């Protein structure tokens, strides 16, 4: 999708790679629903490098936002000022997200299970949690409304768990899980390692996953970040 035939970059970190791989997944897509943090960075990078026409949708109500900087919140003023149009929160969920008018969603989570179900509510017991997380927000309906859901999460046993402490969001529509080690895709209803990032081994990924991970027979390797991808990303985050 990118990288091939380009000058490969050197000296990037795994977070940068993860962002770049996520951005590549938006090539050719019409519209993407994004939250804050890495998903937002990846989607802005996609608009810079792969897909200048990509329509960015934030749950705050801004449709077609074109932020110059990575916004801190999903409601920063720049999002409203640069949007094609802005709608109320009820309209956002009822007319745009629920009916599937937004093609792709980028979501994060504290825990992911083998069916790509997500937990963003609590670590531990709901009534007496070890860690209270922010909660559902827009994720449950975004995950069932959008046709394609891309989960972006750090790969480790605390995140990729055998059993969620709380099932906040269903994984039925998940098409990709992009981590800092590789890419998982649903195959036969279960997340399967299909792509390794450069220099990552299957054993490393299995070690960072809380269940016995299915491995695809044809295991791909993510193309190295191209120089122009990495420089665009760094320029973006420095703004």
């Amino acid at each position, binding site marked *: 999708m990118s990288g091939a035939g380009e000058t490969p970059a050197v000296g990037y970190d795994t977070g940068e790679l993860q962002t770049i791989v996520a951005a590549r997944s938006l090539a050719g897509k019409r519209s993407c629903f994004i939250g804050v943090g890495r998903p937002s960075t990846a989607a802005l990078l996609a608009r810079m490098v792969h897909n200048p026409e990509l329509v960015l949708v934030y749950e705050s109500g801004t449709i077609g936002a074109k932020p110059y900087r990575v916004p*801190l919140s999903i409601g920063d003023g720049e999002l409203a000022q640069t949007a094609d149009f*802005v709608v109320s929160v*009820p309209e956002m969920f009822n007319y745009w997200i629920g009916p599937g008018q937004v093609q792709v969603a980028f979501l994060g989570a504290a825990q992911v299970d083998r069916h790509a179900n997500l937990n963003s*509510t609590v670590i531990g017991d709901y009534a007496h949690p070890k860690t209270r997380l922010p909660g559902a*927000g827009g*994720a449950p309906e975004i995950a069932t409304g959008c046709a394609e859901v891309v989960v972006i999460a750090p790969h480790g046993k605390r995140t990729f768990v055998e059993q969620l402490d709380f099932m906040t969001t269903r994984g039925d529509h998940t098409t990709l899980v992009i981590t800092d080690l590789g890419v998982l895709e649903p195959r036969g209803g279960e997340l399967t390692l299909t792509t390794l990032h450069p220099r990552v081994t299957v054993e490393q990924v299995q070690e960072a996953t809380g269940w016995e991970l299915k491995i695809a027979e044809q295991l791909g390797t993510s193309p190295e970040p191209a120089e122009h991808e990495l420089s665009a990303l760094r320029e973006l985050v420095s703004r």
Partner: protein
Amino acid sequence: MHAMAQAVSLSEAIAETVHDGDSVALEGFTHLIPFAAGHEVLRQGRRELELIRMTPDLLYDQMIGVGAARKLVFSYGGNPGVGSLHRFRDVVEHGWPHPIELEEHSHAGMANRYVAGASKLPFMVMRGYSGTDLVGQTNVKAVVCPFTGETLTAVPALTPDVSIVHAQEADRDGNVQLWGIPGVQKEAVLAATRSVVTVERIVDQLELRPGGVVIPGWVIDFVALAPGGSQPSYALGVTERDNDFYREWDVISRDRDQFTAWMQANVLGKVAA
């Protein structure tokens, strides 16, 4: 039927509308969060509140942290782009300063609950919740489509005793206009028994803006002038979001004593606007 909104001081507006034990919605989705009004509620010493808000944000972290809440009804309790709300975590994880009840929803659920309230319907129908653990921790029910037989989710109307929102401007008759991200403010005001709108400025006449949302004075009880009243949130075109303060709050709010001192110095010990 409301009389026309009265323009009064913020302290009078809050004193007239918010009582101990009330269900209170202070809305504003990232944008136009009514901080000044919420702080006035705290200065007036209100307690046992049922606090309703899609995104509790720093304001409800503060209100929960000083012990004003009996219950929180919400859908996302985080510091957007920064991380945890530490006072919210502390009350849930350790019951400090005292345990509160939680009623937790998704954004789509909360938004539709306000729509039902604004429409004076007892519920709205949507797809969601089913198959998640939220069902067991919240207040939704199944409803069957009488045409297709599909089972959908019914969410109950939100009808706060009081809704408080912030807007850029009002005219002298108390008609309000806000623009930028409109959130659920119109629905929150229409759903409530009583309502207060704080504004950056009073103008002779509203001039309709692109994306402008008008809330007429005849559905509002009180309008109060509160310039900068949504800071560290913002009023598009008037103030800017203080992203640095959102980051600082992560430090201030981590420690109970530091939080308490900050609230005393910056909110509770201040004189009402």
